[in-house]
């Protein structure tokens, strides 16, 4: 049993990263996609970024998964989103932290994380693949 809230947060964050790495099958991956209503809804970004729909279809977002392993086990890592709008203003958000706090606040984060894993695995609509980013 974990004794402190910090330990609980660290455990959930590490579990999220471990789950994503297992699902995606890679320890480092970057993708760039158009930020649209579908991305916002499927990843629960309405919970994380205020007025997020203002960015819909006027910006792109980059997702980066970076995992550090030791003897095949996930030691640490992070998954972050960078939102770039039309004026190239950037906002970085560490999603494992945000999702963990959402879970602690009683929000079901499982579909969001599953959708994030699917987004990383899906090669369609990725801008860098068609030379647009």
């Amino acid at each position: 049993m974990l004794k402190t809230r910090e330990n609980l947060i660290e455990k959930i964050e590490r579990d999220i990263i471990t789950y994503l790495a297992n699902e995606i099958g890679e320890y480092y991956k970057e993708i760039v996609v158009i930020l649209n209503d579908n991305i916002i809804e499927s990843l629960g970004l309405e919970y994380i970024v205020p007025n997020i729909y203002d960015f819909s279809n006027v910006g792109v977002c980059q997702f980066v998964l970076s995992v550090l392993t030791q003897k095949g086990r996930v030691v640490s890592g992070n998954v972050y989103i960078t939102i770039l709008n039309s004026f190239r203003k950037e906002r970085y958000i560490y999603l494992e932290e945000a999702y963990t706090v959402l879970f602690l606040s009683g929000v079901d984060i499982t579909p969001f994380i599953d959708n994030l894993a699917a987004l990383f695995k899906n090669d369609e609509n990725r801008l860098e693949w068609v030379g647009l980013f």
Partner: protein
Amino acid sequence: MRPYNVYGLILDKLKPLLLKEWSKDKRRHYIKGEIYLFLDDENMEKLGFSKLFKVIGYEKYPTRRIILRYQYSIYKKKEYDTYNVDVSSLDLTVIHADIEIQYLDFLTLTLLATAKSVEDIENAISVLYEVIEKALLNRGKREKAIYNEWMNSEIGELVALHKAL
């Protein structure tokens, strides 16, 4: 009524709880901690949490639990041969996603702007007292329940299984 009077009412009401928390380790002068407030729809409205998230611009927000960080100072006032212990600099912060929101300032001004009478303000402060009291009393149980909730979640279970293999 000026804002600091509302703040004063909140501080006075919460003082017994804050002093009780401090009494667990009286060496501390600065106390900081986090609690989980379990709320229903009515309390979400009464305590202004729904409004707080809407004002900031969130399309969706938690409706069952709020993570609240409290911090305050203890000071001892010498009066003749005895010391009186008092509380000051209370701050309440909502932890949400990747940000921290100054809740006490928001509540103080919202009550000032919306309450029709002092009784309305006192009623809201009583609700705040009740939810914080329950959260402090059940802190261990709630943390354990949340831990179990994670371990029984799809991701928690799968990762535990993966580690065991």
